[in-house]
C-alpha cells in the first residue's frame, strides 16, 4: 500500500463515519427529541466527531507529545462545561 493510500484510507472511513453521526444528530433534531439521553448522545457524537477530525484530518494521531492532545483537551473541557450547564435543566 502506498503512503498516500495509508493516509487517505482511514480518512475516508472517518469521513463516512462523520456523515452517519451527522444524520443521527439531525434525526434527533428534526424530531425535537429532548431529555438527557438524547441531548448527551448528540453531545457525545459531537465530541467524537471533533476528536476524529483532530486525529485524522488534522493528523494529530501522527504527533507525539503535548500537541497530540490540544484538540482532546479542548473537547474535554467544553464537553464537561456544557454537560454541567445542561445536566440540571434536562
Amino acid at each position, binding site marked *: 500500500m502506498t503512503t*498516500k493510500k495509508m493516509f487517505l484510507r482511514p*480518512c475516508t472511513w472517518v469521513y463516512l463515519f462523520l456523515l452517519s453521526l451527522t444524520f443521527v*444528530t*439531525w434525526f434527533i*433534531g428534526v424530531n425535537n427529541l*429532548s431529555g438527557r439521553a438524547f441531548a448527551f448522545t448528540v453531545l457525545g457524537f459531537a465530541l467524537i466527531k471533533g476528536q476524529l477530525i483532530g486525529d485524522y484530518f488534522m493528523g494529530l494521531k*501522527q504527533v507525539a507529545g503535548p500537541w497530540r492532545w490540544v484538540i482532546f483537551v479542548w473537547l474535554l473541557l*467544553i464537553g464537561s462545561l456544557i454537560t*454541567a*450547564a445542561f445536566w440540571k435543566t434536562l
Partner: protein
Amino acid sequence: MTGMEKNRWPPGDLVIWIFIMAELLVFGVFFTAYAFTRAHNVELFDTYQLTLDRNAALINTLALITSSYFVVRAVADIRADDSRGCFRWLLAALGMGLLFLVVKGLEYKHHFSLGIDLSTNTFYMFYLSLTFFHFLHVVLGMVILLAVALKARKGGYSAAEHTGVETGASYWHMVDLVWMILFPLVYVMR
C-alpha cells in the same frame, strides 16, 4: 510521514496552531456562555430553538465535513507531488465552503425578514452572534484556502515543501471542528 514514526510538531506552521488554540479558546468561551445562559432561561431557549432550520444546519454540516475531507485529499495529493490534484481538491473544498455561506445566508435572510435582530431576545442574540462569528471564520478560512490553491496551481508547492498547504488545511479543519460542536449545541440539544 511514514505512519510509524511520530512527529514532534503538528502539520503546518506552528504559528497557525497557536492561532488555532487562541480561536478555540474564544469559541470555547462562547459555547460555555451559551450553555450556562440557557440554564437560566431554559424555556426561552427551548421555544426559540424550534424556529431554527435543522435541515439547513444538516446541509451545512455535510458541506463542512465534505469540504474538510476534500482538503485532506488535497494534502494527500501534494504529499505525492501532484500540484494539479491538490489545486482541484482545494477548489472543490472552496465550492463546499461557498455552499455553506449560501445556505447560512438564506437562513439569516429568513430571520431578518421576520424582523429578528440581536435585541429580540437572549436566544437570538446568542444564535446570531455565535453563528455569525463562525460565518466570518468560514470566510477567513476560504480566503486562506484560496491563496493556497492559487499558489498550488502555479506549482508553488511540492512533496518536499508544502507547509503552506498543511497550514491552510489545519485552519480549515478547525473551522469544521468548531461547527461540529455548534450544530448540536445550538440547533439540537434540548
